[in-house]
């Protein structure tokens, strides 16, 4: 190998401690003469350290028992049957509930069913956004809340969830089934995002208690309070989401 020439691949190997020791001196000599490469190499090493600092804590988390248990070897068809049966049950229950509710009050039933679904959909669409998660950022919170209140025709508030580890990222206006809808987005230090979907289309002004819906990986807590329907969505456990939902409810309630 020519000691004068160091290839890009060798720089990476050197940064990762994968380069043959004999070649190390050549790379060091190269770096001494090429400060820009030295700078890149140091940045790569810093990336490695930061990535480990960020994700190594996962290694210490207790492993969910289901992960380490071998599946039932002989029964994949049974598993499939079980899944189908579960899916059918959900479909039937949903249809039955819809039927019963529809009998009572068609619009209210439709609304109550649509709220968590629409909220989950909006969460799924906007929460993975890296560059455009919100229309108006938390740095303009006052403007954001004023704007969304005006569009929804009701005084809104962006609850403060800092004590639970979630900071406001910002919000956006969305089209709902019966008019404009507001979405506030929050994020914790680990990048986990949570959205609060607020709709003003509640037709019957009938309050509800907390309800919970599971939309795939997403959990949604939702409730109706006066004219406004609220739905809180995140890909976290039901218990954690319940804690946040309770805090949101308390803050909004206190504001009345």
């Amino acid at each position, binding site marked *: 190998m020519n000691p004068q020439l160091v290839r890009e691949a060798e720089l990476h190997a050197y940064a990762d401690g994968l380069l043959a020791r004999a070649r190390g001196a050549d790379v060091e000599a190269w770096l001494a003469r090429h400060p820009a490469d030295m700078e890149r190499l140091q940045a790569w090493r810093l990336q490695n350290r930061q990535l480990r600092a960020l994700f190594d804590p996962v*290694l210490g988390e207790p492993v969910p028992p289901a992960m380490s248990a071998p599946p039932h070897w002989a029964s994949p068809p049974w598993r499939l049957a079980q899944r189908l049966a579960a899916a059918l049950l959900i479909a039937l229950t949903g249809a039955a509930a819809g039927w019963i509710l529809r009998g009572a009050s068609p619009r209210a039933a439709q609304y109550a069913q649509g709220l968590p679904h629409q909220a989950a959909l909006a969460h799924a669409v906007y929460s993975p956004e*890296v560059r*455009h998660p919100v229309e108006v950022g938390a740095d303009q919170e006052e403007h954001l809340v004023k704007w969304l209140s005006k569009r929804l025709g009701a005084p809104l508030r962006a609850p403060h969830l800092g004590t639970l580890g979630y900071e406001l990222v910002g919000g956006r206006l969305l089209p709902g089934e019966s008019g404009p809808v507001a979405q506030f987005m929050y994020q914790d230090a680990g990048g986990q995002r949570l959205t609060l979907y607020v709709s003003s289309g509640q037709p019957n002004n009938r309050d509800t208690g907390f309800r919970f819906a599971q939309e795939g990986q997403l959990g949604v807590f939702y409730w109706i309070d006066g004219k406004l329907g609220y739905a809180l969505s995140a890909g976290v456990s039901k218990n954690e989401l319940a804690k946040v939902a309770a805090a949101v409810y308390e803050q909004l309630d206190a504001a009345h």
Partner: protein
Amino acid sequence: MQDDSAELVACIPRLRRYARALMRDVAGADDLVQDTMERAWRRLASWRRGAAMRPWLFGIMHNLHVDRLRKAGLSTVELDEDTPQPVAAAHDTLELRDLQTALASLAPGQREVLLLVALEEMSYEEVAATLAIPLGTVMSRLSRGREKLRAQMEGRPVAAPLKVVK
């Protein structure tokens, strides 16, 4: 058989770390690990004893992940560039969170290579075997991924493709 099972179970924390870094979303990441383990248990008998377990196991996860990305591609909605961009607040710039955001902006292939090297400390040959791609592709993805990450962390636009240092 018993040893194989123990070795497989011992890999779970590392699979979770890798999945978490790949996906951000905790529930989705654990779901990916769960599916990987189910498939691994079923195929453990056919795993060639003596071969390295890690590339085999991480390879299973890679395939499942790629399948999901393909499916997810149908239901995600891209915003156009005209959408107003929020101004990053000062408290928004915690360095590690920036790193996570920057990581999420890499092409999936670049992210996988970078994470297998940085977190798993795999050799480049192992990465190639895990992802079933040529060594040259591993190197170019690593190089591009690292430079893009560096550019993002330094808050400058991503540079044109790198010249090869000869």
